[in-house]
C-alpha cells in the first residue's frame, strides 16, 4: 500500500514512528512551537544535549531567496510528495518531517532570516548525505526559492570575521576547474593556511567551491559557494554573527541587485548584472560553444543563440516562470545578464547562480557602464 493511499490513522502511526526515530536535534526542531530566535533555539538545544550526554549534531544551513517562506514550504511539500510525512508551523519557522524509503527520518526547517525575503533551510543531515542531495533537487525543481552566490570577497569577509576570535585555519578546500575537473586539498592541523592563502592556491581558471575552516575550539565550519554553511562545533552565536548573518547580508544585497531589472516599455533599460570570470576565460570560440551547450542542457532554461562572433548574445527564458533575459559575453572575463520584460528576482537569481555554477565565477555585481567623452577617447580605448 502506497503512502498516498494509507488511512489517516496509519499515516498518524507512521508519523509517530518517524518522530520516535528522529535524532536529538531534529526532535527539538519538530517539537519546538514557541517563537524563539535561532541562536537561543540552537544554544538551548546544545545545552539540553550536553545535559542528557547526547552528542551535539552538526547543523547544515542553506540560505535561499524567496518572496514567501510559506509558499516555499508549500512547494517543498508538493515536490516532496509522500516523502513529507507531516509539517508544522511556528511563528518563525516551518518544519517538515521527511522520510525517504530505507533511510532514517529527519526534519527540515524553513527558518525565516532576520531580513525579509531570505530564509535558511536547516537540518542535521550532512550535505554529503543522499537525503540532503534529494532536498537540493527539490529546490532545483521549485520556482519558489533561489540560491545565493557567495563571491570570493564574501568568502574572505566571512573568514575575516571568524579571525576576530582567534587564529583561523583551513583544513580542507575543494575547487572546480573551468574544464569541470575537481581539486581537493587537505592540510594537517600544524600547517593550515589562512583563507586568503587557501584562495591563492586555487589556480586562476578554477573556482573555490568549499572550505573547511576552524578557529581553535571556538568555531569549526564548512562554507559552500552556493550560500551553504555547516556548523560543526564551537560557539553557535559566533557562527550566527560571523557566518549566517554575513550570508544573509549577501543574500539581501543580491535580492537588491536582481530587483528593478524588469524592462518596461519606453523606460531606459537597467544596466546588466555582470558575472566576473578569470582574465582570458572566454579566450576562444570553443569556450563559447561549451558555455552555450552547458546552459542549454539545464532543463528549465530555453536558450537561443542570437550572435556568436565577435561576441556572444543569447536569449534565455526560464520555462518555470516565464522570466526572460539577454545574456552577453562581450569580453573574455565577464558574462552580462540583462532582465527582460518579465524577470522575477528569483528567476534572475536562478539564472545567475546557474552561470556561476558552470563557470569559475568570482564575483557578481551591477555592470559599470563607463561613458565615453569623445571619439578620440573611444579610439584610444580600442572601442
Amino acid at each position, binding site marked *: 500500500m502506497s503512502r498516498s493511499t494509507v488511512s489517516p490513522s496509519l499515516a498518524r502511526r507512521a508519523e509517530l514512528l518517524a518522530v520516535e526515530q528522529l535524532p536529538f536535534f531534529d526532535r527539538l526542531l519538530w517539537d519546538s512551537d514557541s517563537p524563539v530566535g535561532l541562536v537561543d533555539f540552537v544554544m538551548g538545544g546544545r545545552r539540553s544535549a550536553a545535559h542528557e550526554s547526547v552528542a551535539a549534531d552538526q547543523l547544515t544551513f542553506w540560505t535561499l531567496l524567496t518572496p514567501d517562506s510559506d509558499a516555499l514550504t508549500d512547494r517543498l511539500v508538493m515536490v516532496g510528495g509522500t516523502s513529507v510525512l507531516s509539517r508544522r508551523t511556528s511563528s518563525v519557522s516551518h518544519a517538515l518531517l521527511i522520510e525517504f524509503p530505507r533511510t532514517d527520518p529527519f526534519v527540515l526547517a524553513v527558518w525565516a532570516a532576520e531580513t525579509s525575503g531570505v530564509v535558511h533551510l536547516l537540518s542535521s543531515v550532512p550535505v554529503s548525505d543522499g537525503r540532503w542531495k534529494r532536498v537540493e533537487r527539490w529546490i532545483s525543481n521549485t520556482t519558489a526559492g533561489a540560491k545565493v552566490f557567495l563571491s570570493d570577497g564574501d568568502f574572505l569577509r566571512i573568514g575575516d570575521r571568524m579571525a576576530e576570535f582567534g587564529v583561523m585555519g583551513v583544513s580542507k578546500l575543494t575547487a572546480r576547474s573551468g574544464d569541470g575537473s575537481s581539486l581537493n586539498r587537505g592540510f594537517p592541523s600544524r600547517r593550515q593556511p589562512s583563507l586568503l592563502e587557501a584562495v591563492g592556491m586555487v589556480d586562476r581558471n578554477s573556482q573555490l567551491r568549499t572550505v573547511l575552516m576552524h578557529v581553535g575550539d571556538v568555531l569549526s565550519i564548512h562554507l559552500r559557494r552556493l550560500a551553504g554553511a555547516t556548523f560543526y562545533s564551537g560557539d553557535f552565536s559566533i557562527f550566527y554573527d560571523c557566518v549566517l548573518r554575513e550570508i544573509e547580508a549577501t543574500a539581501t544585497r543580491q535580492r537588491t541587485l536582481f530587483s528593478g531589472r524588469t*524592462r518596461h*516599455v519606453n523606460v*531606459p*533599460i537597467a*544596466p*546588466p548584472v555582470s558575472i566576473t570570470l578569470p582574465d582570458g576565460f572566454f579566450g576562444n570560440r570553443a569556450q563559447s*560553444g*561549451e558555455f*552555450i*551547450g552547458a546552459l*542549454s*542542457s539545464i*532543463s*528549465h532554461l*530555453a*536558450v*537561443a*543563440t*542570437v*550572435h556568436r*562572433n*565577435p*561576441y556572444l*548574445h*543569447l*536569449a*534565455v*527564458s*526560464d*520555462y518555470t*516562470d*516565464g*522570466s*526572460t533575459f*539577454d545574456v*552577453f559575453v*562581450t*569580453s*573574455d572575463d*565577464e558574462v*552580462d545578464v*540583462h532582465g*527582460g*520584460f*518579465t524577470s522575477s528576482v528569483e528567476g534572475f537569481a536562478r539564472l545567475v547562480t546557474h552561470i556561476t555554477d558552470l563557470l569559475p565565477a568570482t564575483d557578481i555585481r551591477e555592470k559599470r*557602464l563607463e*561613458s*565615453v*567623452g*569623445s*571619439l*578620440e577617447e*573611444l*579610439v584610444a580605448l*580600442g*572601442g
Partner: protein
Amino acid sequence: MESYTKAELLRSHEIYDDLVSIVSAFEFLFTEVGSLVPTVEHFERYPSVKHSVDNRSTTPDFTVVFKDGVGLAGEIARFPLHENGVDKLCSQIQRYDTLDVLPGATASPVEVPQGVDVLLIVPFSLGTAAVKRVLRDRMLEDGHAYAPGRAPCIVQYTKDSERYTFQRINDPANGRLRESNRSEGLGAWLEADNVPVRADRFQQIKAARRFGNDPIDPLYLAAHLWVTEFAELSQEQPRIGRYVSLVVDTPAVANRLRTRYGKGGKKDVDRAMAILGAAQLATPLGGSKWRVAWGELARRNQIDSLLEVIAERAESRPKSGPVSAMLRTERESREKSEQSRLF
C-alpha cells in the same frame, strides 16, 4: 509550402544579426559618445520617410539629423554578385541622396536643408568591390542612371573577438561626410583612423531594441518569439501534457513587438510562424491565428541552442513533434472524459 534549409536559415540569421549589431554600434556612437551627442538632433533606428518625388516610403537602416542642418542616411549592405543587385542597391541609395526630410524626435519628419549624406557600410571583404562597382562602374560612368548629387561615403567594417571596427575606404572617388560646421564629426575619424566599437558599448541598446529596419529575418524572429514572447505568454495558459497550448494572432503579436521594440509587422510574424509551423512547433488555425505547442525542446547536439534546433526542424519538417504530441494528449484526454461520462 516553403521549403527551408538549415544552413541557409542560419546564414540569413547571421547576416540580419550583424545588421542589428552594426546599427546598434552607430546608435551608440551618435547617442552616447559625449562629443558627438551635442551635434545630433535625432538618431532614428527605424526610419521610414515618404520621398517628396514619388511619396513612396524610403527606409534606410538608420538616419541622423544633425544640428547643422545636414542629414545622414546609413545603409548596411552585403554586396550581391549579380549586376542587377548592385543596380538595385544604387537606386536605393540614390533615393536617400535626394531626401529633403528625415524622421525627427517627435516621430514627424523634419527638414534637412543641407541635404542628406549617404553612408554605405559594407564588410571589409567587399570594400574594394564596393568602390569599383558603385563608384567607378556606375557613379563615375557617364550617362549611368546612378548619378547622386554627392558621392556616398563607403565605410568597411571588420569584426574581431570583441569589437566591430569601421574605416572609410581611402579612395579619391569615395565620398566624405559634411561636418565642417560641427565641433566633432565621425567622418573625420573614419577617414583618419579606425573607429572601433566594442560590443559591450552597444549591448544594452541591442538588448532593448532588438531589431533592425529591414524586414525581420524569419528565423531570428521565430527564435525570439519562442524564447521571449511565447515564454511570457505561456505562463497563464493551459498545459497539455508536456506542452503549453498557446493561441496567437499574428497582428496582435506584431503589435506587441512594435510596442516593446518599435519594430515588427504582420508579415514578419507570418514568416516566423511559417518556420515554427514547418518545425512542428505551431499549427495554423485559419485566418491569422496559430496554435503553438510551447515547451522544452529536445536537442540532438550538445552545443546546439534552440536556434539550431528550430532551423533543423524547419528543414526536416518532422511528421511528429510538440504539436502532434499536444493534440494526441488532448484527444486522449477528451476520449477518457467521454468514456467516464458514458459509464
